[in-house]
């Protein structure tokens, strides 16, 4: 090992604080020095002096983080962690700034500084004290920036020679969060008290061992104690691996190098992101928007404040300035409400940073530097920044994923303008998750979350090729939907009868989005079981409002259930059964499947009781299109038909392609296609009206408030913020104080 005698370091000011400096003092110093550059690091002295040594230093730390994730996940019993890798480890400065992260749920790096800062500001150093071997755990969105309470964090302070030199942290998405409604993204939550087991950071162990009371809390306050306790141990194992690695690195490089070097790494990361924005973007303003519906009508018996329909609006505006600064702004978004889909800033920031990682972080060190450079805007009182600390925040990922998609699409506008077509794509993704709770026939209570749809969405179309199905999620760059058998093993009443890609389920375009996929389960021997869902955009709207270059935005999620069926009989007799929502329709149509009752949901499901032989099916993860569908190569349309992704009618109506299904692979009629496309273009000119004419008619409708109540309420509520008021009244030429009479109820 090399002794710490680096020449450059000798010249560097000794900024490493002494063992007695309090964290509060360090944090104040960090804030004072982190205005433009990070922590007063104006030059990368260690990097410039010996770049090889510097990169070796960073690699050693990064290896520690990667190993922590890859090894510790086998401590977990949940397929979400063990198989799919829905977890993240981070190494933080004493002040809480991420120096580096592992692979996995990268957006959660946004939470990390919020949690540490909260402990410092609330004087945890004095009470309960922060000592070597202490363990801190929690999952509170408001105080810790956890995206949702399903994301649990463990923090381990790392000491060297008696002094706190860093923090290791690990997080993962757990199976059940002990909420009123079972699962980990509880719907129909009106405030934090129905969000489940929400815990601000607490000292949960000492000497690297959890206190017995903490494990008892997991047992008593959640429905998946075994999984949640093993997840907790997994996070601690990973943190200890990181701690050991940091000790090794300090022994080799010296403490001063560690302190200086980690600050340089962060500043280096900031410069990388800035350089990439300058290289790829265009100064200016790009816009998109997203909408999320929430049907809460009927909950009033218990929750009168929440008893209404919501249409949650969030603009996504990306502004690049002349200095390559980037602001991702949601000003004009809906106010927070008594529903599950509010988020505190950690959730929004995590989403916004993910879009930046996708667009501008290649070849960079992903760390706090990215967060320092990129600004994220949410108005106080809005759905992403409630001015009520007990607002529910059980599923903000339902809305913030739209921010990722919108911001990726915004970035693509800059790539297109500069000619970097290879980078242009439609970054759309929605997600879904079946979850629930019940009592098994043997008397054991349980709660669960199936994370498969969180592990893989289709990719949206690129500017030059179709999106791939189930290939991607923005929030976990090691995308994986897990093995069906693994999920069956931990969700004992739900048996997969199919995982299928869903025909026609994409945004069409010159290049189409990847088709989304479905999962279908038959329920066997459930005892008593109620299932529900957590998820992103539902099919009342699309994933994102504005499509790319004439392509259609991706459709949202749907859920269907079938009750009192003849599935038990069919299975006992060895007869075939359906494996997708569309086969279910066919089987019902030809009389093979008997169903007494069914439900279809394009909004969130309440808990639905499922009995033996019932079927649950859902589809998610469709990708958006790029470009005018009439420009799609006819042979690609024909291939889609032959592969079963597209019907002949869609080919004709949307793509203007004539295809004779009876002729199979030879069915493409090129001459007929050319004629049909010319006809469709003529039809567009006939049926399209000048926007000016549409505006005149539509304006009268706006003035009369001739919309469904929920849409009226959305406009009215968003107008409580100046940004939307100016936009709405300005566009429609209305008085500045325009309003609808029956504004949406907010109490």
């Amino acid at each position, binding site marked *: 090992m090399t002794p710490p005698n680096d020449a450059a370091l000798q010249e560097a000011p000794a900024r490493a604080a002494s063992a007695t400096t309090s964290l509060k003092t360090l944090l104040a110093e960090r804030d004072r020095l982190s205005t433009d550059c990070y922590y007063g690091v104006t030059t990368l002295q260690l990097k410039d002096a010996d770049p090889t040594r510097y990169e070796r230093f960073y690699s050693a730390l990064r290896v520690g983080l990667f190993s922590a994730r890859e090894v510790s996940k086998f401590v977990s019993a949940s397929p979400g962690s063990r198989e799919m890798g829905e977890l993240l480890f981070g190494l933080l400065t004493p002040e809480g700034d991420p120096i580096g992260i592992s692979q996995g749920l990268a957006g959660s790096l946004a939470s990390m500084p919020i949690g540490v800062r909260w402990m410092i500001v609330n004087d945890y150093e004095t009470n309960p004290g922060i000592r070597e071997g202490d363990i801190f755990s929690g999952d509170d969105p408001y105080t810790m920036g956890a995206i949702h309470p399903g994301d649990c964090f463990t923090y381990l302070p790392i000491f060297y020679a008696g002094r706190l030199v860093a923090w290791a942290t690990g997080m993962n998405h757990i199976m059940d969060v002990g909420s009123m409604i079972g699962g980990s993204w509880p719907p129909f939550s009106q405030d934090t008290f129905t969000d489940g087991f929400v815990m601000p950071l607490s000292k949960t162990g000492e000497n690297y061992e959890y206190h017995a009371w903490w494990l008892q809390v997991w047992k008593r306050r959640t429905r998946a104690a075994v999984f949640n306790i093993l997840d907790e141990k997994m996070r601690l194992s990973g943190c200890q691996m990181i701690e050991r690695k940091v000790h090794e690195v300090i022994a080799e490089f010296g403490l001063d190098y560690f302190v200086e070097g980690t600050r340089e790494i962060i500043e280096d990361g900031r410069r990388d992101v800035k350089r990439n924005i300058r290289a790829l973007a265009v100064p200016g303003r*790009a816009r998109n928007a997203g909408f999320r519906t929430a049907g809460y009508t009927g909950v009033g018996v218990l929750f009168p404040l929440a008893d209404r329909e919501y249409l949650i609006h969030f603009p996504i505006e990306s502004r690049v300035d002349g200095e390559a600064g980037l602001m991702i702004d949601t000003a004009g978004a809906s106010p927070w409400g008594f529903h599950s889909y509010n988020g505190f800033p950690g959730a929004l920031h995590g989403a916004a940073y993910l879009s930046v990682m996708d667009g501008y972080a290649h070849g960079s060190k992903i760390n706090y530097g990215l967060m320092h450079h990129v600004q994220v805007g949410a108005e106080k009182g809005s759905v992403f920044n409630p001015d009520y600390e007990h607002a529910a925040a059980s599923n903000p990922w339902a809305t913030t994923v739209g921010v990722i998609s919108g911001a990726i699409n915004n970035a693509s506008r800059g790539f297109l303008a500069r000619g970097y*077509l290879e980078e242009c794509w439609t970054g759309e993704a929605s997600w879904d998750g079946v979850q629930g709770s019940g009592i098994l026939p043997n008397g054991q209570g349980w709660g669960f979350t199936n994370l498969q749809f969180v592990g893989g969405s289709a990719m949206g179309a690129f500017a030059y090729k179709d999106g791939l199905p189930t290939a991607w999620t923005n929030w976990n760059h090691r995308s994986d939907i897990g093995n069906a058998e693994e999920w069956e093993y931990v969700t004992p009443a739900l048996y997969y009868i199919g995982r299928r890609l869903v025909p026609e389920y994409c945004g069409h375009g010159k290049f189409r989005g990847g088709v989304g996929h479905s999962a279908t389960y038959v329920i066997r021997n459930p005892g008593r079981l109620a299932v529900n869902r957590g998820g992103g955009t539902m099919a009342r709207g699309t994933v994102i409002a504005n499509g790319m270059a004439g392509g259609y935005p991706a459709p949202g999620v749907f859920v269907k259930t079938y009750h009192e069926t003849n599935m038990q009989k069919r299975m006992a007799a060895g007869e075939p059964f359906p494996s997708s929502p569309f086969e279910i329709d066919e089987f019902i149509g030809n009389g093979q499947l008997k169903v007494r009752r069914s439900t279809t949901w394009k909004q969130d499901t309440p808990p639905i009781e499922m009995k033996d032989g019932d079927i649950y099916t859902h589809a998610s993860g469709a990708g958006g299109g790029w470009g005018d569908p009439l420009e799609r190569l006819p042979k690609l349309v024909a291939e889609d038909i032959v592969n079963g992704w597209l019907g002949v009618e869609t080919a004709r109506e949307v793509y203007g392609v004539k295809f004779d299904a009876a002729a199979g692979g030879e069915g493409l009629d090129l001459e007929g296609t050319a004629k049909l496309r010319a006809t469709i273009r*003529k039809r567009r000119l006939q049926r399209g009206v000048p926007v000016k004419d549409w505006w005149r008619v539509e304006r009268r409708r706006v003035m009369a408030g001739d919309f469904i109540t929920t849409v009226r309420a959305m406009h009215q509520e968003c107008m409580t913020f100046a940004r939307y008021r100016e936009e709405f009244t300005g*566009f429609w030429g209305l008085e500045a104080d325009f309003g609808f009479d029956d504004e949406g109820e907010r109490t």
Partner: protein
Amino acid sequence: MSGEQSRLETIERPEEVSPRLVERMLEGDLSWEEWRQLLKLPRKDPDRIHKYLRALQSRVGFADRILMRISDHLYIVQSPAGRIVKCDCGREFGDYRVNWKLSALVYIRDTAPSITEVYRCKDFAPEPGWSEVREYYCPGCATQLCVEVVPPGYPPIFEFLPDLDTFYRDWLEQPLADAASDWYTDRTTCVTASWKD
């Protein structure tokens, strides 16, 4: 998409992104392998925009200088009337500071039958009343320039308003002759205000 084997280019360094490669990119003629190599470049060729604008200019049928491409078919051009949005078919959409959608044709799908023509299954089709599908067409060539799916009454989304002077002056170091402080401004509401009777 399927470039012939003999034309495959090897692109490992930014300098190897040739003007011809950029032309072939616009012709839709690159193989996936070539796109992949472009994606894997350690850094981008900083002069791409010049190769790109030249290639675009030679492809459009008009003489107005292209200042920026803002969508598959739309450009901000320097015309005698100032900086305007123009379709590659030649149709003009007016001042680029005004949302170009205001000069397009629009077709609204707001009923279940019309929405399910494009979102084919009722289970995942956007819901009338909550959402309407707006298709914007070029009045010149009938190309579908944008689709937005929004609640009724939602102002059309102004996709992209570049700050051209900052880009040309500070980033490309080639300031535009008509640079002025009010080019980076949203003028959309000035137009709709003029539509009131």
